[in-house]
């Protein structure tokens, strides 16, 4: 499903991760671990296509990746339903998915409330609801359970399990144990060594 080999990513012109390779098959998840600033977000953005890689290749079927980052792109003035309907239409899905998403993330009683008047946890659930609406197979999630309470984390894990059972895959960067059976990949060994980083500028410099 998702295939990375020998991928290196750079942040601000400096390579932060190199030689990253892994394979993510349908139906299972991969948790990315590593201390802050190692480049988890940079790697996820590269996989989502927002950022070019310094070298190496990322293979994934066309139009199959849905990305969710810290900032969940929720518009404060729009209600829950309007937010979800917008993203449903952007990804070309019917509004029936919207109701399914609202059910799954138990936002039923919030549907007509503008996102401005929602707690961080509820907004987070709306952000994850957006993922359901994209109907995309590979979820690329950056710290999805930030500011979620215990119950919501459990809810989120159920949604991910359902997604995996449905043949989807998930790549999640998180420090919290989600209770999903998934391999974990520690990125520390892939940390770019300080003095030999292949900064495209510096590589052929001296």
């Amino acid at each position, binding site marked *: 499903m998702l295939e990375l080999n020998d991928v290196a990513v750079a942040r*601000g012109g400096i390579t932060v991760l190199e030689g990253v390779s892994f394979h993510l098959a349908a139906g299972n998840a991969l948790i990315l671990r590593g201390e802050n600033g190692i480049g988890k977000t940079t790697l996820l*953005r590269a996989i*989502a*296509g*927002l*950022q*070019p890689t310094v070298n190496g290749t990322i293979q994934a079927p066309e*139009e199959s*990746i*849905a*990305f*969710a*980052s*810290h*900032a*969940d*792109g*929720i*518009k*404060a*003035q*729009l209600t829950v339903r*309007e937010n979800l*309907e*917008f*993203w449903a*239409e*952007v*990804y*070309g899905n019917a509004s029936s998915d919207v109701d399914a998403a609202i059910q799954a993330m138990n936002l039923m009683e919030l549907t007509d409330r503008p996102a401005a008047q929602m707690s961080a946890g509820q907004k987070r659930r709306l952000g994850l609801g*957006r993922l359901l609406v*994209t109907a995309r197979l590979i979820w690329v999630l950056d710290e999805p359970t930030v500011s979620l309470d215990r119950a919501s984390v459990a809810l989120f894990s159920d949604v991910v399990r359902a997604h995996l059972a449905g043949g989807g895959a998930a790549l999640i960067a998180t420090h919290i144990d989600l209770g999903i059976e998934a391999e974990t990949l520690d990125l520390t060994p892939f940390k770019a060594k300080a003095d030999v980083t292949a900064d495209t500028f510096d590589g052929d410099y001296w």
Partner: protein
Amino acid sequence: MKALLLRDLRLAIRAGGGFGLGLAFFLILATLIPFGVGPQPDVLASIAPGVLWVGALLSCLLSLERIFALDFEDGALDLMASSPLPLEGIVAVKSLAHWLTTGLPLVVAAPLLGLMLNLPSQSYGWLLMSLLIGTPALSVIGAFGAAITVGLKRGGLLISLLVLPLYVPTLIFGADVVRRAGQGLDASVPAFMLAGLTLGAVAIMPFASAAALRAGLKGS
């Protein structure tokens, strides 16, 4: 694509800040000029075309930063860039939304302000037409400036420095249409130039803006 347009329009109306800001600025500018220049009707009549066009241009400039900045801050821009919508399409739709919420109200308000500035009566039609043709170019070029400065600190200051020189040709032809109409000359030549300029800008600028956005998002 349509969803994005409807969403942006809904946001602009709900937020209310959008077109109200541009319109208010245009009104204030038009009222300030006579205080500075003096109330003599003939003086005002001769500078009215220029004032109206410069006013429209500056009002557009004011609300450019909002085109991408809001979506950039809450991450929506990243999500849209990784969605099936082409970036060029997103930029074109956002420019259209900016034109509808800021450009169009200016076109409607301009004749009223023209009265205040004692604009010669026969040039109102041309004023409306030139603004109608010219403001889309202002929105599309402005969107390019917004795309370049998205995510930069002090982006607002930079936008005016980058975008105003790009507005010069539109301003020259636009104001010229109204001035010639006022003097009873044939204003069709600058009008065609203005139309050509706008069509060219609308066709090309979204690609330049998308390239700038791609570079900008890559960096953040």
